[in-house]
Protein backbone atom coordinates (compact mmCIF):
# COMPACT_ATOMS: atom_id res chain seq x y z
CA UNK A 1 0.00 0.00 0.00
CA UNK A 2 2.98 2.31 0.58
CA UNK A 3 6.02 2.03 -1.60
CA UNK A 4 9.14 4.16 -1.35
CA UNK A 5 11.64 4.09 -4.19
CA UNK A 6 15.09 5.65 -4.13
CA UNK A 7 14.01 8.43 -1.79
CA UNK A 8 16.55 11.23 -1.45
CA UNK A 9 16.44 14.36 0.62
CA UNK A 10 18.54 17.09 2.16
CA UNK A 11 18.32 20.03 4.52
CA UNK A 12 19.87 22.90 2.63
CA UNK A 13 23.31 21.72 1.63
CA UNK A 14 23.51 18.70 3.89
CA UNK A 15 22.21 15.51 2.32
CA UNK A 16 20.43 13.19 4.68
CA UNK A 17 18.76 10.50 2.57
CA UNK A 18 20.60 8.68 -0.18
CA UNK A 19 17.99 6.50 -1.81
CA UNK A 20 15.68 4.74 0.63
CA UNK A 21 13.70 1.74 -0.65
CA UNK A 22 11.02 -0.18 1.19
CA UNK A 23 7.37 -0.96 1.13
CA UNK A 24 4.49 -1.59 3.50
CA UNK A 25 1.76 -3.92 2.33
CA UNK A 26 -1.83 -3.65 3.44
CA UNK A 27 -2.34 -4.90 6.97
CA UNK A 28 1.37 -5.25 7.61
CA UNK A 29 3.41 -3.88 10.52
CA UNK A 30 6.78 -2.57 9.45
CA UNK A 31 9.40 -0.84 11.58
CA UNK A 32 12.03 1.70 10.69
CA UNK A 33 15.05 1.14 12.91
CA UNK A 34 18.29 2.99 13.25
CA UNK A 35 20.28 5.07 15.65
CA UNK A 36 19.63 8.72 16.41
CA UNK A 37 20.04 11.05 13.51
CA UNK A 38 20.16 8.40 10.81
CA UNK A 39 17.26 9.84 8.87
CA UNK A 40 14.18 8.01 10.08
CA UNK A 41 12.13 11.13 10.76
CA UNK A 42 13.38 12.67 7.57
CA UNK A 43 12.11 9.64 5.68
CA UNK A 44 8.68 10.00 7.27
CA UNK A 45 8.56 13.72 6.54
CA UNK A 46 9.50 13.04 2.93
CA UNK A 47 6.76 10.46 2.57
CA UNK A 48 4.18 12.89 3.88
CA UNK A 49 5.38 15.69 1.65
CA UNK A 50 6.26 17.81 4.65
CA UNK A 51 9.76 17.94 3.26
CA UNK A 52 9.35 17.52 -0.48
CA UNK A 53 11.70 14.78 -1.73
CA UNK A 54 14.70 15.81 -3.76
CA UNK A 55 14.75 12.50 -5.56
CA UNK A 56 12.96 9.17 -5.72
CA UNK A 57 9.29 8.31 -5.63
CA UNK A 58 6.53 7.65 -3.15
CA UNK A 59 3.57 5.48 -4.14
CA UNK A 60 0.39 5.01 -2.18
CA UNK A 61 -1.82 2.24 -3.50
CA UNK A 62 0.13 2.42 -6.71
CA UNK A 63 -0.57 6.12 -7.16
CA UNK A 64 2.50 8.27 -7.53
CA UNK A 65 2.18 10.81 -4.72
CA UNK A 66 5.67 12.29 -5.05
CA UNK A 67 5.57 16.06 -4.80
CA UNK A 68 1.90 16.16 -3.84
CA UNK A 69 0.95 18.42 -0.92
CA UNK A 70 0.76 16.75 2.52
CA UNK A 71 -3.01 16.89 2.75
CA UNK A 72 -3.43 15.02 -0.52
CA UNK A 73 -1.07 12.31 0.65
CA UNK A 74 -2.78 12.03 4.03
CA UNK A 75 -6.15 11.80 2.33
CA UNK A 76 -4.96 8.65 0.61
CA UNK A 77 -5.32 6.98 3.99
CA UNK A 78 -2.13 7.81 5.87
CA UNK A 79 -2.24 8.97 9.50
CA UNK A 80 0.73 10.51 11.26
CA UNK A 81 1.81 10.55 14.89
CA UNK A 82 4.72 12.90 14.53
CA UNK A 83 7.92 13.11 16.45
CA UNK A 84 7.51 15.74 19.16
CA UNK A 85 3.72 15.25 19.25
CA UNK A 86 2.75 18.61 17.77
CA UNK A 87 -0.41 18.90 19.79
CA UNK A 88 -2.50 21.96 18.96
CA UNK A 89 -1.99 24.02 22.11
CA UNK A 90 -4.95 26.35 21.68
CA UNK A 91 -7.47 23.59 21.14
CA UNK A 92 -9.02 21.54 23.89
CA UNK A 93 -8.30 17.84 23.98
CA UNK A 94 -11.62 17.08 22.41
CA UNK A 95 -11.15 19.69 19.73
CA UNK A 96 -7.73 18.26 18.97
CA UNK A 97 -9.44 15.00 18.27
CA UNK A 98 -12.32 16.23 16.17
CA UNK A 99 -10.73 19.11 14.26
CA UNK A 100 -9.05 16.90 11.70
CA UNK A 101 -11.32 13.90 12.05
CA UNK A 102 -12.04 12.09 8.84
CA UNK A 103 -14.23 9.09 8.12
CA UNK A 104 -14.70 7.56 4.72
CA UNK A 105 -16.86 4.74 5.93
CA UNK A 106 -20.32 5.10 7.29
CA UNK A 107 -19.52 3.45 10.61
CA UNK A 108 -15.99 4.62 11.24
CA UNK A 109 -13.89 2.44 13.43
CA UNK A 110 -12.39 5.25 15.40
CA UNK A 111 -14.74 7.66 17.10
CA UNK A 112 -14.47 9.86 20.14
CA UNK A 113 -15.96 7.07 22.19
CA UNK A 114 -13.52 4.44 21.07
CA UNK A 115 -10.58 6.77 21.58
CA UNK A 116 -11.76 7.65 25.05
CA UNK A 117 -12.21 3.97 25.78
CA UNK A 118 -8.62 3.37 24.85
CA UNK A 119 -7.29 6.45 26.70
CA UNK A 120 -9.57 7.20 29.66
CA UNK A 121 -7.04 9.79 30.79
CA UNK A 122 -7.91 11.88 27.75
CA UNK A 123 -11.55 11.78 28.63
CA UNK A 124 -10.79 13.16 32.07
CA UNK A 125 -8.80 15.97 30.48
CA UNK A 126 -11.08 16.59 27.53
CA UNK A 127 -11.74 20.24 28.39
CA UNK A 128 -8.07 21.03 28.99
CA UNK A 129 -6.22 22.97 26.37
CA UNK A 130 -3.52 21.10 24.49
CA UNK A 131 -0.75 23.04 26.19
CA UNK A 132 -1.98 22.07 29.62
CA UNK A 133 -1.27 18.38 29.21
CA UNK A 134 1.60 16.42 30.61
CA UNK A 135 4.07 15.03 28.14
CA UNK A 136 2.55 11.61 28.22
CA UNK A 137 -0.98 12.88 27.87
CA UNK A 138 0.10 14.77 24.79
CA UNK A 139 1.48 11.57 23.34
CA UNK A 140 -1.79 9.77 23.84
CA UNK A 141 -3.60 12.63 22.25
CA UNK A 142 -1.32 12.53 19.23
CA UNK A 143 -2.08 8.86 18.71
CA UNK A 144 -5.77 9.44 19.17
CA UNK A 145 -5.74 12.35 16.78
CA UNK A 146 -4.13 10.28 14.04
CA UNK A 147 -6.56 7.41 14.58
CA UNK A 148 -9.47 9.80 14.28
CA UNK A 149 -8.62 10.26 10.61
CA UNK A 150 -9.37 6.52 10.28
CA UNK A 151 -6.23 5.81 8.30
CA UNK A 152 -5.40 2.57 6.56
CA UNK A 153 -1.75 3.07 7.34
CA UNK A 154 -0.78 4.72 10.58
CA UNK A 155 2.74 6.05 10.93
CA UNK A 156 4.13 6.45 14.44
CA UNK A 157 7.37 8.29 14.94
CA UNK A 158 8.61 7.54 18.48
CA UNK A 159 5.09 7.24 19.77
CA UNK A 160 6.07 5.77 23.14
CA UNK A 161 8.72 8.29 23.96
CA UNK A 162 8.13 9.81 27.36
CA UNK A 163 5.43 7.37 28.29
CA UNK A 164 5.34 5.45 31.52
CA UNK A 165 5.99 1.72 31.24
CA UNK A 166 2.33 1.01 31.85
CA UNK A 167 1.27 3.50 29.24
CA UNK A 168 3.81 2.17 26.80
CA UNK A 169 2.36 -1.25 27.25
CA UNK A 170 -1.06 0.14 26.52
CA UNK A 171 0.15 1.68 23.30
CA UNK A 172 1.55 -1.64 22.21
CA UNK A 173 -1.70 -3.32 23.06
CA UNK A 174 -3.49 -0.72 21.08
CA UNK A 175 -1.19 -1.20 18.10
CA UNK A 176 -1.78 -4.90 18.25
CA UNK A 177 -5.49 -4.32 18.14
CA UNK A 178 -5.09 -1.90 15.28
CA UNK A 179 -3.10 -4.54 13.50
CA UNK A 180 -5.70 -7.16 14.14
CA UNK A 181 -8.29 -4.87 12.58
CA UNK A 182 -6.29 -5.13 9.40
CA UNK A 183 -4.66 -1.72 9.36
CA UNK A 184 -1.09 -1.29 8.25
CA UNK A 185 1.40 0.29 10.63
CA UNK A 186 4.77 1.88 10.06
CA UNK A 187 6.51 2.43 13.35
CA UNK A 188 9.71 3.97 14.60
CA UNK A 189 10.69 3.16 18.15
CA UNK A 190 13.71 2.32 20.15
CA UNK A 191 12.13 -0.63 21.97
CA UNK A 192 13.41 -3.11 19.42
CA UNK A 193 12.59 -6.12 21.51
CA UNK A 194 8.93 -5.31 21.78
CA UNK A 195 8.74 -4.46 18.11
CA UNK A 196 10.37 -7.74 17.18
CA UNK A 197 7.51 -9.48 18.93
CA UNK A 198 4.70 -8.15 16.83
CA UNK A 199 6.04 -6.45 13.72
CA UNK A 200 6.16 -8.35 10.46
CA UNK A 201 9.18 -6.80 8.87
CA UNK A 202 11.98 -4.42 9.79
CA UNK A 203 13.92 -1.86 7.82
CA UNK A 204 17.23 -0.70 9.29
CA UNK A 205 18.53 2.68 8.24
CA UNK A 206 22.09 3.84 8.62
CA UNK A 207 23.24 7.23 7.41
CA UNK A 208 20.38 7.68 5.00
CA UNK A 209 20.58 4.22 3.42
CA UNK A 210 18.72 0.98 4.02
CA UNK A 211 21.36 -1.39 5.27
CA UNK A 212 19.21 -4.34 6.19
CA UNK A 213 15.65 -5.44 5.91
CA UNK A 214 13.89 -8.62 6.75
CA UNK A 215 11.39 -10.28 9.06
CA UNK A 216 11.39 -10.50 12.83
CA UNK A 217 12.96 -13.89 12.89
CA UNK A 218 15.75 -12.58 10.77
CA UNK A 219 16.31 -9.69 13.17
CA UNK A 220 16.30 -11.86 16.26
CA UNK A 221 18.63 -14.38 14.65
CA UNK A 222 21.00 -11.69 13.57
CA UNK A 223 22.61 -10.16 16.68
CA UNK A 224 25.19 -8.60 14.43
CA UNK A 225 22.61 -6.23 12.96
CA UNK A 226 21.48 -5.17 16.39
CA UNK A 227 25.01 -4.56 17.51
CA UNK A 228 26.23 -2.80 14.44
CA UNK A 229 23.31 -0.62 13.58
CA UNK A 230 21.21 -0.38 16.68
CA UNK A 231 23.74 -0.66 19.50
CA UNK A 232 21.36 -2.68 21.56
Amino acid at each position, binding site marked *: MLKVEGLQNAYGQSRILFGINFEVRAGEVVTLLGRNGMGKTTTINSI*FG*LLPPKGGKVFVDGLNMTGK*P*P*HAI*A*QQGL*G*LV*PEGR*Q*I*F*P*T*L*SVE*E*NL*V*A*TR*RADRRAPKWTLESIYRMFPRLKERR*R*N*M*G*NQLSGGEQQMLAVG*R*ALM*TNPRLIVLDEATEGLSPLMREEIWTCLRSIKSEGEAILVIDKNVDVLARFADRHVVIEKGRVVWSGDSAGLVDNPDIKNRYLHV
Partner: protein
Amino acid sequence: MLNLFLLQSLNGIQFGILLFLVAAGLTLIFGVMDLINLAHGVLYMIGAYLTAAFAAMTGSFAYGILIALPATLAIGIALEVLVFRRLYDRSHLDQVLATFGLILILNETVKIIWGSAPLSVPMPEAFSGSIQLMGNLRYPTFRILIIAAGLATALGLYFMVNHTRLGMLLRAGATHGAMVSALGVNIRRLFMIVFGLGAMLAGFAGGMVAPILSVDPGMGDSILILTFVVIVIGGVGSVRGAFVAAILVGLVDTLGRSFGPMLLRNLLDPAAAAQMGRTLAPMLVYILMAAVLYLRPTGLFPMGGGTR
Protein backbone atom coordinates in the same frame (compact mmCIF):
# COMPACT_ATOMS: atom_id res chain seq x y z
CA MET B 1 -27.34 65.12 31.60
CA LEU B 2 -28.22 61.47 31.94
CA ASN B 3 -29.61 61.58 28.45
CA LEU B 4 -26.41 63.04 27.14
CA PHE B 5 -24.49 60.35 28.91
CA LEU B 6 -26.62 57.65 27.34
CA LEU B 7 -26.29 59.22 23.96
CA GLN B 8 -22.54 59.49 24.27
CA SER B 9 -22.35 55.90 25.42
CA LEU B 10 -24.26 54.89 22.35
CA ASN B 11 -21.83 56.91 20.26
CA GLY B 12 -18.93 55.20 21.94
CA ILE B 13 -20.41 51.79 21.31
CA GLN B 14 -21.00 52.63 17.69
CA PHE B 15 -17.42 53.79 17.26
CA GLY B 16 -16.28 50.63 19.00
CA ILE B 17 -18.36 48.48 16.69
CA LEU B 18 -16.74 50.12 13.71
CA LEU B 19 -13.31 49.40 15.15
CA PHE B 20 -14.37 45.85 15.83
CA LEU B 21 -15.39 45.25 12.24
CA VAL B 22 -11.93 46.16 11.06
CA ALA B 23 -10.13 44.54 13.97
CA ALA B 24 -11.94 41.21 13.70
CA GLY B 25 -10.32 40.35 10.40
CA LEU B 26 -6.94 41.54 11.55
CA THR B 27 -7.00 39.56 14.75
CA LEU B 28 -8.09 36.43 12.88
CA ILE B 29 -5.32 36.78 10.35
CA PHE B 30 -2.87 37.55 13.10
CA GLY B 31 -4.03 34.75 15.35
CA VAL B 32 -4.40 32.08 12.72
CA MET B 33 -1.60 32.75 10.31
CA ASP B 34 0.60 34.58 12.77
CA LEU B 35 0.83 37.31 10.19
CA ILE B 36 1.21 40.96 11.05
CA ASN B 37 -0.68 42.59 8.25
CA LEU B 38 -0.12 46.32 8.26
CA ALA B 39 -1.97 46.45 4.96
CA HIS B 40 -5.22 45.57 6.65
CA GLY B 41 -6.17 49.22 6.88
CA VAL B 42 -5.71 49.49 3.15
CA LEU B 43 -8.24 46.72 2.63
CA TYR B 44 -10.69 48.74 4.67
CA MET B 45 -10.00 51.69 2.41
CA ILE B 46 -10.44 49.56 -0.70
CA GLY B 47 -13.79 48.40 0.62
CA ALA B 48 -14.87 52.00 1.01
CA TYR B 49 -13.67 52.98 -2.45
CA LEU B 50 -15.31 50.01 -4.11
CA THR B 51 -18.54 50.73 -2.30
CA ALA B 52 -18.33 54.32 -3.44
CA ALA B 53 -17.62 53.30 -7.01
CA PHE B 54 -20.31 50.65 -7.21
CA ALA B 55 -22.82 52.83 -5.39
CA ALA B 56 -22.22 55.55 -7.94
CA MET B 57 -22.56 53.05 -10.76
CA THR B 58 -25.77 51.47 -9.52
CA GLY B 59 -27.16 54.52 -7.80
CA SER B 60 -27.79 52.54 -4.65
CA PHE B 61 -25.74 52.14 -1.50
CA ALA B 62 -27.12 48.69 -0.87
CA TYR B 63 -26.12 47.40 -4.28
CA GLY B 64 -22.83 49.19 -3.93
CA ILE B 65 -21.88 47.39 -0.77
CA LEU B 66 -23.27 44.10 -2.00
CA ILE B 67 -21.02 44.19 -5.03
CA ALA B 68 -18.09 45.57 -3.07
CA LEU B 69 -18.10 42.61 -0.69
CA PRO B 70 -17.26 39.89 -3.21
CA ALA B 71 -14.91 42.33 -4.89
CA THR B 72 -12.85 42.88 -1.73
CA LEU B 73 -12.99 39.16 -1.12
CA ALA B 74 -11.50 38.64 -4.56
CA ILE B 75 -8.86 41.29 -3.99
CA GLY B 76 -8.00 39.76 -0.63
CA ILE B 77 -7.60 36.34 -2.17
CA ALA B 78 -5.54 37.71 -5.01
CA LEU B 79 -3.22 39.43 -2.52
CA GLU B 80 -3.00 36.24 -0.52
CA VAL B 81 -1.93 34.26 -3.54
CA LEU B 82 0.51 36.88 -4.78
CA VAL B 83 2.12 38.05 -1.57
CA PHE B 84 0.86 36.92 1.80
CA ARG B 85 1.15 33.22 1.10
CA ARG B 86 4.88 33.72 0.93
CA LEU B 87 4.99 35.52 4.25
CA TYR B 88 3.38 33.03 6.61
CA ASP B 89 6.57 31.27 7.57
CA ARG B 90 8.59 34.47 7.76
CA SER B 91 9.55 36.50 10.78
CA HIS B 92 7.19 39.18 11.95
CA LEU B 93 9.57 41.86 10.87
CA ASP B 94 9.78 40.59 7.33
CA GLN B 95 6.01 40.74 7.36
CA VAL B 96 6.10 44.30 8.64
CA LEU B 97 8.49 45.28 5.87
CA ALA B 98 6.51 43.61 3.10
CA THR B 99 3.11 44.81 4.23
CA PHE B 100 4.46 48.32 4.74
CA GLY B 101 5.49 48.12 1.10
CA LEU B 102 2.01 46.92 0.21
CA ILE B 103 0.47 49.92 1.94
CA LEU B 104 2.51 52.21 -0.25
CA ILE B 105 1.60 50.28 -3.38
CA LEU B 106 -2.12 50.04 -2.70
CA ASN B 107 -2.47 53.61 -1.44
CA GLU B 108 -0.79 54.89 -4.54
CA THR B 109 -2.83 52.63 -6.79
CA VAL B 110 -6.04 53.91 -5.27
CA LYS B 111 -4.79 57.43 -5.85
CA ILE B 112 -3.98 56.69 -9.46
CA ILE B 113 -7.41 55.19 -10.07
CA TRP B 114 -9.63 57.53 -8.08
CA GLY B 115 -7.46 60.57 -7.59
CA SER B 116 -6.57 62.11 -4.28
CA ALA B 117 -9.84 63.96 -3.82
CA PRO B 118 -12.13 62.33 -1.29
CA LEU B 119 -15.15 60.52 -2.71
CA SER B 120 -18.75 60.84 -1.70
CA VAL B 121 -21.11 58.07 -0.80
CA PRO B 122 -24.62 59.35 -0.29
CA MET B 123 -26.49 58.19 2.77
CA PRO B 124 -29.11 55.61 1.78
CA GLU B 125 -32.56 57.26 1.94
CA ALA B 126 -34.09 54.63 4.16
CA PHE B 127 -31.54 55.11 6.88
CA SER B 128 -30.96 58.81 6.70
CA GLY B 129 -33.33 59.73 9.51
CA SER B 130 -33.06 59.23 13.19
CA ILE B 131 -34.96 57.13 15.68
CA GLN B 132 -36.65 58.22 18.87
CA LEU B 133 -35.02 56.19 21.60
CA MET B 134 -36.38 57.46 24.89
CA GLY B 135 -37.44 60.83 26.14
CA ASN B 136 -36.10 63.37 23.70
CA LEU B 137 -33.23 61.13 22.76
CA ARG B 138 -32.83 60.68 19.03
CA TYR B 139 -30.21 58.58 17.32
CA PRO B 140 -29.27 58.38 13.64
CA THR B 141 -30.76 55.30 12.02
CA PHE B 142 -27.67 54.58 10.01
CA ARG B 143 -25.54 54.35 13.11
CA ILE B 144 -27.99 51.90 14.56
CA LEU B 145 -27.60 49.92 11.38
CA ILE B 146 -23.83 49.88 11.90
CA ILE B 147 -24.26 48.69 15.46
CA ALA B 148 -26.60 45.95 14.34
CA ALA B 149 -24.31 44.84 11.54
CA GLY B 150 -21.36 44.78 13.90
CA LEU B 151 -23.18 42.78 16.52
CA ALA B 152 -24.34 40.27 13.95
CA THR B 153 -20.81 39.93 12.62
CA ALA B 154 -19.43 39.51 16.11
CA LEU B 155 -21.86 36.75 16.96
CA GLY B 156 -21.27 34.99 13.67
CA LEU B 157 -17.53 35.11 14.05
CA TYR B 158 -17.60 34.04 17.65
CA PHE B 159 -19.69 31.06 16.73
CA MET B 160 -17.50 30.22 13.80
CA VAL B 161 -14.22 30.37 15.67
CA ASN B 162 -15.30 28.55 18.79
CA HIS B 163 -17.94 26.13 17.69
CA THR B 164 -17.25 24.98 14.17
CA ARG B 165 -14.75 22.65 12.59
CA LEU B 166 -13.51 25.55 10.52
CA GLY B 167 -12.81 27.50 13.68
CA MET B 168 -10.94 24.61 15.26
CA LEU B 169 -8.87 24.16 12.15
CA LEU B 170 -8.10 27.86 12.14
CA ARG B 171 -6.83 27.71 15.67
CA ALA B 172 -4.93 24.52 14.99
CA GLY B 173 -3.37 25.94 11.87
CA ALA B 174 -2.27 28.95 13.82
CA THR B 175 0.26 26.93 15.75
CA HIS B 176 1.07 23.82 13.77
CA GLY B 177 0.13 24.47 10.18
CA ALA B 178 2.21 21.66 8.76
CA MET B 179 0.68 19.19 11.19
CA VAL B 180 -2.82 20.17 10.14
CA SER B 181 -1.99 19.43 6.56
CA ALA B 182 -0.27 16.18 7.44
CA LEU B 183 -3.58 15.16 8.96
CA GLY B 184 -5.29 15.64 5.63
CA VAL B 185 -6.54 19.21 5.69
CA ASN B 186 -5.75 21.58 2.86
CA ILE B 187 -4.17 24.28 4.95
CA ARG B 188 -3.38 26.55 2.05
CA ARG B 189 -6.99 26.76 1.07
CA LEU B 190 -7.89 27.25 4.70
CA PHE B 191 -5.53 30.19 5.01
CA MET B 192 -6.79 31.61 1.77
CA ILE B 193 -10.35 31.48 3.06
CA VAL B 194 -9.41 33.17 6.30
CA PHE B 195 -7.50 35.84 4.54
CA GLY B 196 -10.30 36.49 2.09
CA LEU B 197 -12.75 36.57 4.95
CA GLY B 198 -10.61 39.02 6.90
CA ALA B 199 -10.24 41.23 3.86
CA MET B 200 -13.95 41.11 3.26
CA LEU B 201 -14.70 42.08 6.85
CA ALA B 202 -12.38 45.05 6.56
CA GLY B 203 -13.97 45.93 3.25
CA PHE B 204 -17.39 45.62 4.82
CA ALA B 205 -16.38 48.03 7.56
CA GLY B 206 -15.06 50.45 4.96
CA GLY B 207 -18.26 50.20 2.97
CA MET B 208 -20.47 50.68 6.01
CA VAL B 209 -18.73 53.84 7.13
CA ALA B 210 -18.45 55.33 3.67
CA PRO B 211 -21.65 57.34 4.08
CA ILE B 212 -20.50 58.90 7.34
CA LEU B 213 -16.73 59.15 6.99
CA SER B 214 -14.42 60.60 4.44
CA VAL B 215 -13.45 58.17 1.69
CA ASP B 216 -9.93 59.31 0.98
CA PRO B 217 -6.53 57.72 0.39
CA GLY B 218 -5.48 58.24 4.00
CA MET B 219 -8.44 56.55 5.65
CA GLY B 220 -6.74 53.19 5.93
CA ASP B 221 -3.71 54.52 7.75
CA SER B 222 -5.71 56.44 10.28
CA ILE B 223 -7.72 53.43 11.35
CA LEU B 224 -4.85 50.95 11.25
CA ILE B 225 -3.19 52.03 14.45
CA LEU B 226 -6.47 52.11 16.37
CA THR B 227 -7.19 48.64 15.07
CA PHE B 228 -3.90 47.37 16.37
CA VAL B 229 -4.61 48.99 19.69
CA VAL B 230 -7.88 47.11 19.81
CA ILE B 231 -6.51 43.69 18.98
CA VAL B 232 -3.65 44.05 21.39
CA ILE B 233 -5.87 45.14 24.26
CA GLY B 234 -8.17 42.25 23.48
CA GLY B 235 -5.41 39.70 23.23
CA VAL B 236 -4.10 38.82 19.81
CA GLY B 237 -6.13 36.22 17.97
CA SER B 238 -9.16 36.44 20.20
CA VAL B 239 -12.31 37.57 18.43
CA ARG B 240 -14.06 37.92 21.74
CA GLY B 241 -11.16 40.01 23.02
CA ALA B 242 -11.29 42.22 19.95
CA PHE B 243 -14.96 42.82 20.54
CA VAL B 244 -14.62 43.74 24.18
CA ALA B 245 -11.56 45.87 23.52
CA ALA B 246 -13.19 47.68 20.62
CA ILE B 247 -16.19 48.64 22.70
CA LEU B 248 -13.88 49.64 25.53
CA VAL B 249 -11.78 51.82 23.27
CA GLY B 250 -14.87 53.37 21.71
CA LEU B 251 -16.37 54.18 25.09
CA VAL B 252 -13.19 55.46 26.69
CA ASP B 253 -12.44 57.64 23.72
CA THR B 254 -15.92 59.08 23.34
CA LEU B 255 -16.83 59.46 26.99
CA GLY B 256 -13.38 60.65 27.91
CA ARG B 257 -13.55 63.37 25.32
CA SER B 258 -16.96 64.56 26.31
CA PHE B 259 -16.91 64.16 30.07
CA GLY B 260 -13.22 64.20 30.85
CA PRO B 261 -12.90 67.99 30.92
CA MET B 262 -15.99 68.13 33.11
CA LEU B 263 -14.41 65.79 35.62
CA LEU B 264 -11.12 67.61 35.50
CA ARG B 265 -12.89 70.86 36.26
CA ASN B 266 -13.71 69.48 39.68
CA LEU B 267 -10.03 69.08 40.38
CA LEU B 268 -8.39 72.00 38.63
CA ASP B 269 -9.25 75.56 37.76
CA PRO B 270 -11.16 75.85 34.48
CA ALA B 271 -8.28 77.02 32.30
CA ALA B 272 -5.95 74.33 33.52
CA ALA B 273 -8.70 71.75 33.23
CA ALA B 274 -9.37 72.72 29.64
CA GLN B 275 -5.69 72.62 28.80
CA MET B 276 -5.23 69.32 30.55
CA GLY B 277 -8.34 67.86 28.94
CA ARG B 278 -7.12 68.81 25.50
CA THR B 279 -3.72 67.32 26.10
CA LEU B 280 -5.08 64.10 27.50
CA ALA B 281 -7.93 63.50 25.07
CA PRO B 282 -5.89 62.11 22.20
CA MET B 283 -3.79 60.06 24.58
CA LEU B 284 -6.73 58.35 26.25
CA VAL B 285 -6.78 55.21 24.16
CA TYR B 286 -3.03 54.88 24.42
CA ILE B 287 -3.13 55.35 28.17
CA LEU B 288 -5.82 52.70 28.25
CA MET B 289 -3.68 50.35 26.22
CA ALA B 290 -0.57 50.92 28.30
CA ALA B 291 -2.54 50.38 31.49
CA VAL B 292 -4.19 47.19 30.24
CA LEU B 293 -0.90 45.77 29.03
CA TYR B 294 0.83 46.71 32.24
CA LEU B 295 -1.75 44.80 34.22
CA ARG B 296 -2.29 42.00 31.71
CA PRO B 297 0.79 41.72 29.53
CA THR B 298 -0.94 39.54 26.95
CA GLY B 299 -4.18 41.44 26.69
CA LEU B 300 -7.58 40.81 28.18
CA PHE B 301 -8.24 37.45 26.55
CA PRO B 302 -4.91 35.86 25.77
CA MET B 303 -4.99 32.99 23.32
CA GLY B 304 -4.93 29.50 24.72
CA GLY B 305 -5.14 30.65 28.30
CA GLY B 306 -7.71 28.71 30.27
CA THR B 307 -10.74 27.08 28.81
CA ARG B 308 -12.82 29.26 26.58
